[in-house]
């Protein structure tokens, strides 16, 4: 069943939409949740939250890329869970490491406030991603969007650990430079 048919099921408020979504995107979303939460049970619960989130938001939404939309829902919900667990001081060290890596180039402690600034940042990030070569962009997103461990990124792209770390280091530096150019740092 293609995305359009699944979307039609949501718009008809047909509960089979959830079944088809789980069949089509269950493993994709579970992998994202698992990367972030590092806990199978939490990941499963998170993915179930994603299905509920999709059911509640489609309609009125009609995402052009259903897979990416579900991935974003999963990532967002998993990070929320990670934060809750982080407050309890347990697990989720992959996100902690990713945060520390990004904090090397974005050292500020001040939190971004205001929807306009957030939207501006999103647009800036997309412009930054536009500037990257495809492989570099994919490696960057696998690490910081999907929160894959470095060893998994190496394995996925067939790169050595040194090469992967160096590539990520250079991309982070490019990011810092880009954000400075855009007056966001």
């Amino acid at each position, binding site marked *: 069943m293609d995305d359009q048919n699944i979307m039609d099921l949501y718009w008809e408020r047909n*509960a089979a939409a*959830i079944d088809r979504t789980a069949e089509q995107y269950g493993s994709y979303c579970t992998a994202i949740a698992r990367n972030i939460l590092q806990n199978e049970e939490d990941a499963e619960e998170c993915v179930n939250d994603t299905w509920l989130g999709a059911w509640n938001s489609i309609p009125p939404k009609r995402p052009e890329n259903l897979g990416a939309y579900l991935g*974003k829902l999963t990532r967002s919900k998993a990070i929320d869970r990670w934060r809750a667990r982080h407050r309890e001081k347990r697990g989720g060290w992959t996100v902690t490491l990713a945060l520390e890596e990004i*904090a090397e180039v974005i050292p500020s402690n001040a939190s971004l406030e205001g929807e306009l600034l957030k939207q501006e*940042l999103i647009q800036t*990030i*997309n412009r930054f991603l536009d500037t990257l070569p495809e492989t570099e962009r994919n490696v960057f997103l696998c690490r910081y969007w999907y929160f894959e461990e470095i060893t998994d990124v190496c394995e996925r792209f067939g790169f050595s650990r040194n090469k992967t770390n160096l590539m990520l280091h250079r991309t982070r530096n490019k990011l810092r430079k880009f954000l400075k150019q855009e007056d966001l740092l």
Partner: protein
Amino acid sequence: MNAKDFLNALNDADDAYVWQAGHAGKTGGSVTARRGRRLVLRALLAAVIVIALAATVYGIGELIGIWNDRWLQTPAPDPEQVVREAVSRQIEKDYTISVTVEEIRADAAETRKIFSWEPDSVLALRSGYGPKPAALEGKQLAEVQAVYARYTVVYDHTKTFYRDGTLDQYFYLVQTEDGNWVIFDSSDTQELPLNQPDGGGSCP
């Protein structure tokens, strides 16, 4: 801005880039598989359980007719027209023998109630005054519309147990960015005796 803000905002990166990265590399998604087939199998098992539960709930719902909000709709600039068409198109369902629209009208009072999520709105009552529907989040009053419909429908009861007769029902719509209206939910139906369309029934 700090690192957390950045990682949060990265969530809204371009769909195409996100999707491409998730399926990039020599080994694609098999990294996960190699990390632990057992974990993947457990995830699949969970998905099967979800499917089975959803199917069971759906089957029960089909029997007692709680999925009566499955509307064939076409978004349009006129909310009453969207509802009129959605009701009329019930005839396209293989279990519908006939359907006649009696009355369609926008209901300002119910619109205000669901917008403010007042406990006595029909939709709030039906949901047991649960959380405000996600479809209403971020919407202005002008982008929300409740539409009352009265229609007479006859279903083939060898195929469905949906309630038929002359029914009163509310439809709830929101306006999308392109200016069209879409149904996001509907109330339960209230039955009036057949052939007595004015037989004391009122809006739910």
